[in-house]
């Protein structure tokens, strides 16, 4: 480094894709530019992993919504007290579950372009912050739907002797299995969301 009023470093490869500014056109580039370009690699890897996780979350959320939405069982007999058909819209909690998981899958599909933008431009902070904010809201909705449905499924499996709520799974075995599978898929989606938020946080920081 020369003692003087400027630092001159010859960086020939940065002249190709650096915008025309007076300092760089003269062949003098600040030291910071070289460091930032070398460290962009891991952010791109994080963005690609984020994109793949997002696709996995779409699969899980769609599976949860569709399995719950198509769950239906009709018993071949009927008794005096129980209705002989069980469907997801008999329970308002399951209706909320289907709607919430559909909203979450729709959001995930719409967030794919932002994820692609952060792959193409690893240094851009804006799309990542946007994704982090909306991922947090979607995580809350997802967890809320999954936990509420899990409470009802637990009740359906075990019943509750204190409130005299009978375990309906003993009659509707297939319905219970489908509904439990949907709840498990929703919780898988919750875990994936937590990873997505962590990845966005790791990629936001300035190295």
């Amino acid at each position: 480094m020369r003692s003087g009023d400027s630092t001159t470093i010859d960086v020939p490869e940065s002249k190709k894709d650096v915008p025309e500014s007076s300092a760089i056109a003269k062949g003098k580039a600040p030291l910071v530019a070289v460091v930032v370009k070398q460290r962009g690699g891991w952010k791109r890897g994080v963005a690609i992993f984020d994109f793949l996780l997002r696709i996995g979350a779409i699969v899980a959320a769609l599976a949860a919504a569709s399995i719950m939405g198509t769950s239906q069982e009709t018993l071949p007999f009927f008794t005096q007290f129980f209705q002989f058909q069980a469907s997801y819209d008999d329970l308002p909690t399951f209706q909320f579950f289907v709607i919430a998981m559909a909203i979450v899958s729709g959001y995930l599909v719409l967030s794919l372009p932002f994820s692609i933008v952060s792959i193409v431009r690893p240094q851009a902070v804006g799309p990542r912050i946007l994704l982090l904010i909306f991922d947090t809201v979607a995580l809350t909705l997802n967890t809320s739907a999954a936990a509420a449905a899990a409470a009802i499924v637990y009740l359906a499996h075990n019943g509750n002797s204190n409130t005299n709520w009978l375990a309906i799974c003993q009659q509707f075995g297939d319905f219970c299995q489908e509904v439990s599978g949907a709840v498990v898929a929703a919780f898988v989606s919750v875990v994936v969301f937590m990873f997505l938020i962590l990845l966005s946080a790791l990629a936001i920081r300035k190295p």
Partner: protein
Amino acid sequence: MKADAIELGVGKSSPKRGGLNRGVSILDFIIRIVAIPGTIGSAIAMATTNETLPFVTRFVRFRAEYNDLPMFTFFVVANSIVSAYLLLSLPLSIFHILRSSAERSRILFIFLDTAMLGLLTAGASAAASIVYLAHKGNAKANWLAICQQFNSFCERTSGSLIGSFLGVVAFILLILLSAVALSRR
């Protein structure tokens, strides 16, 4: 011009950005303090509610407590864990106010806040679905609405959900603030 090129690289930690980060950290601390009584109040309100009916019928038990329903037990446990976490995270939040450029601890904050958000939302939603069931019942599954017998028990449990959901909103804001502070270091 030559001096400008150097200052571009150095100007990231100018006083303005440091001031904004400090404001964000102070807001983070305040939200944490506000969320603590919400979650603690919810846990206590749910755990201390019980109602004994003055009569006995053949089908319904005459005493209702929070641990009659495992979802309410989970609610109390989740709220207690979250309020303990909020109390323990106050010193780290004060550290962020004093030292606005701490990066790794903010990432730790985001990670732990996300986990606590999931736990709190799960507890609050499970309890909310059971409270809804207790209010309305379900004709198809032959589940009776127990709120018609246990009025004050139902009111107390419904009210304790409010503090928990306010805690959920607080955690969303905390995650947002940590992310904003991380990106503006």
